């Protein structure tokens, strides 16, 4: 069992989980109008009073979660060899244009931890991706404890990008409401401590899944293809004997939705919830209290959900008045009681959802267990070996445009992909490497390309991520007299977009994940690729290394991986 033994939320609403929980219960919010220097327009967001840098934020959050573990009589040694740090962020240290992995390593070292931290940068689903990855790595037996922490600073970079997307609401947001008109951004550091443990009562992470829409890099699927598959994946449990069981809708106390309050996200989630047969389950969004805290969202919203349900209540959706989605779902603007299950006790399973740019969607099921004296078997997935049957490497110097033209000339029917020219360099590199790889695979195995499939995942590791595009975007906002933030450039500043581009091109509905890694180290990359096979629907992974600094410094090393199991 993967048990949650401690947590912390540091937000404008409080420095402890208890303070934050009380604020949500009382309906308080820190959403207010702000203005960043050098930006023509004000915006509504939930921001720390005093700016808190990315690394300082991570340290404060981790320290507070460690204190919580200590207070609960479950002290954790952060420097132990079997303790792993997992960091969740979209653009955490963008102020310094530095790889996330460098910040994460410094933070781990600050706590005396010598393990290479895992850094998840999977757009808005990062927090749940980080929890799912941590769970899988713990289950593989490599680590005993994972400290999972998420944070994003709402800098001018991020805020201007969301403004250019016309995605921000001028007032406090109104999730799922008929009058919703966009999201608010927010700052918070959220931390969860997970450990492998036999049944001792408390919350466990039961299951989780990530699926791509294979639809568009910023628009959610109108039919909720990815979110529906993620929900189905999370609700399907594997028992120790290999048999499957499905968590019934009636067993769920509530659904903690993404509920960003954009027109399309909330509509998509309502479709997913309805298609999954969960339309009667109570649903809520916490964005009206915190705004969208990006890398922290999956952790923060899970922590509030678990504590509230344990106390017997379901948070109100602040800002919601009237139903505003095409499919009816069970949202309320009021705090509700957790309903009783068939056993006469309050229900104790919850479903957490997130969706993000790059077409990614995540779902996680948590379960509150009684304190049983009977010991349960610890799940352990023996890590099966991987085989990389087809492999492609590219490195500078080379012209990505010339490589694209060569691919196009080779295959008149499918090689023409004008979208290539719209991509940032990292996505261009990923597109070319994956095209070469998949052409090679098709030639070797005779398999057909472009048939929709959900058994294939895309797992990419990078060091510099979208750095080249980050600098290009910064250029569109750095001068007051030439301030024209570009949405088409901004969207690619999320490094996981390349995984979405590959899924979109090839109609892959499986998991897509992006990790920031210190270098092209095969052991770490294969370890992360292997985690994707924990989703039993996955039979192969397009995975490996993509890194782009500039035209003279880039490299790609991708393979089609199969599990030897």
């Amino acid at each position, binding site marked *: 069992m993967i048990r949650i033994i401690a947590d912390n939320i540091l937000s404008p609403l409080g420095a402890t989980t208890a303070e934050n929980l009380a604020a949500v219960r009382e309906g308080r919010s820190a959403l207010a109008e702000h203005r960043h220097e050098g930006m023509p327009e004000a915006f509504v967001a939930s921001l720390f009073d005093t700016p808190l840098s990315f690394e300082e934020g991570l340290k404060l959050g981790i320290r507070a979660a460690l204190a919580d573990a200590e207070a609960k009589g479950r002290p954790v040694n952060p420097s132990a060899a079997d303790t792993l740090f997992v960091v969740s962020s979209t653009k955490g240290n963008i102020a310094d244009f530095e790889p996330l992995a460098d910040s994460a390593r410094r933070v781990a070292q600050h706590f005396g931890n010598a393990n290479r931290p895992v850094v998840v940068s999977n757009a808005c689903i990062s927090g749940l991706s980080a929890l799912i990855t941590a769970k899988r790595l713990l289950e593989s037996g490599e680590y005993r404890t994972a400290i999972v922490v998420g944070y994003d600073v709402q800098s001018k970079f991020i805020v201007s990008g969301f403004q250019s997307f016309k995605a921000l609401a001028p007032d406090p947001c109104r999730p799922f409401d008929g009058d919703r008109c966009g999201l608010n951004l927010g700052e918070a550091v959220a931390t969860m401590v997970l450990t492998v443990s036999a049944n001792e009562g408390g919350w466990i992470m039961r299951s989780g899944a990530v699926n791509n829409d294979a639809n568009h890099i910023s628009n959610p699927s109108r039919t909720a293809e990815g979110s529906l598959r993620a929900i189905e994946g999370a609700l399907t449990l594997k028992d120790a004997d290999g048999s499957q069981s499905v968590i019934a809708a009636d067993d769920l106390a509530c659904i903690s939705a993404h509920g960003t309050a954009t027109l399309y996200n909330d509509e998509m989630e309502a479709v997913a919830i309805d298609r999954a047969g969960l339309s009667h389950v109570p649903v809520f969004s916490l964005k009206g209290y915190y705004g969208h805290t990006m890398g922290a969202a999956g952790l923060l919203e899970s922590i509030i959900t678990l504590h509230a349900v344990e106390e017997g209540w379901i948070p109100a959706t602040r800002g919601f008045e009237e139903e505003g989605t095409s499919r009816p779902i069970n949202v309320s603007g009021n705090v509700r009681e957790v309903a009783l299950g068939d056993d006469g006790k309050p229900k104790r399973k919850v479903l957490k959802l997130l969706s993000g740019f790059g077409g990614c969607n995540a779902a996680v099921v948590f379960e509150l267990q009684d304190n049983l004296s009977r010991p349960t078997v610890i799940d352990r997935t023996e890590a099966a070996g991987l085989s990389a049957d087809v492999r492609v490497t590219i490195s500078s110097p080379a012209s990505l445009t010339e490589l694209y033209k060569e691919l196009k000339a080779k295959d008149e029917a499918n090689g023409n992909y004008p979208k290539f020219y719209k991509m940032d360099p990292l996505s261009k590199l990923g597109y070319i490497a994956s095209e070469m790889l998949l052409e090679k695979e098709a030639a070797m195995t005779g398999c057909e390309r472009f048939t929709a499939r959900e058994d294939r995942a895309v797992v990419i590791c990078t060091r510099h991520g979208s750095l080249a595009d980050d600098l290009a975007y910064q250029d569109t906002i750095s001068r007051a007299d030439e301030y024209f933030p570009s949405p*088409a450039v901004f969207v690619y500043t999320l490094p996981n977009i390349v995984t979405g581009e590959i899924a979109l091109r090839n109609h892959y509905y499986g998991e897509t994940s992006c990790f920031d890694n210190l270098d092209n180290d095969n052991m770490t990359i294969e370890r992360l690729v292997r985690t994707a096979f924990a989703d039993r629907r996955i039979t192969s992974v397009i995975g490996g290394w993509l890194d782009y600094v500039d035209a003279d410094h880039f490299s790609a090393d991708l393979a089609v991986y199969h599990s030897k199991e």
Partner: protein
Amino acid sequence: MEIEKLKEQIIDALNLEDLTPADIEDDAPLFGEGLGLDSIDALELIVLMEKFYGIKLQNPAEGKNIFKSVNCMAAYIEANRTK
């Protein structure tokens, strides 16, 4: 309003690398099948109008009518430009 210049600005802003102004018909729909443009392209066209013509469009939904065709866009720019 010079239509050719606007077409060049559109090609440049949307990275329509394989197209020339001659490929964009004055009255053909910009969105839908034609050029394969999407919602991000629509947002970029809003930036284009602000950058070159000083037009600030607050509600992206208005774009739907303005970006019907190059002719439509040119007429809107002509009527609303501040630079």
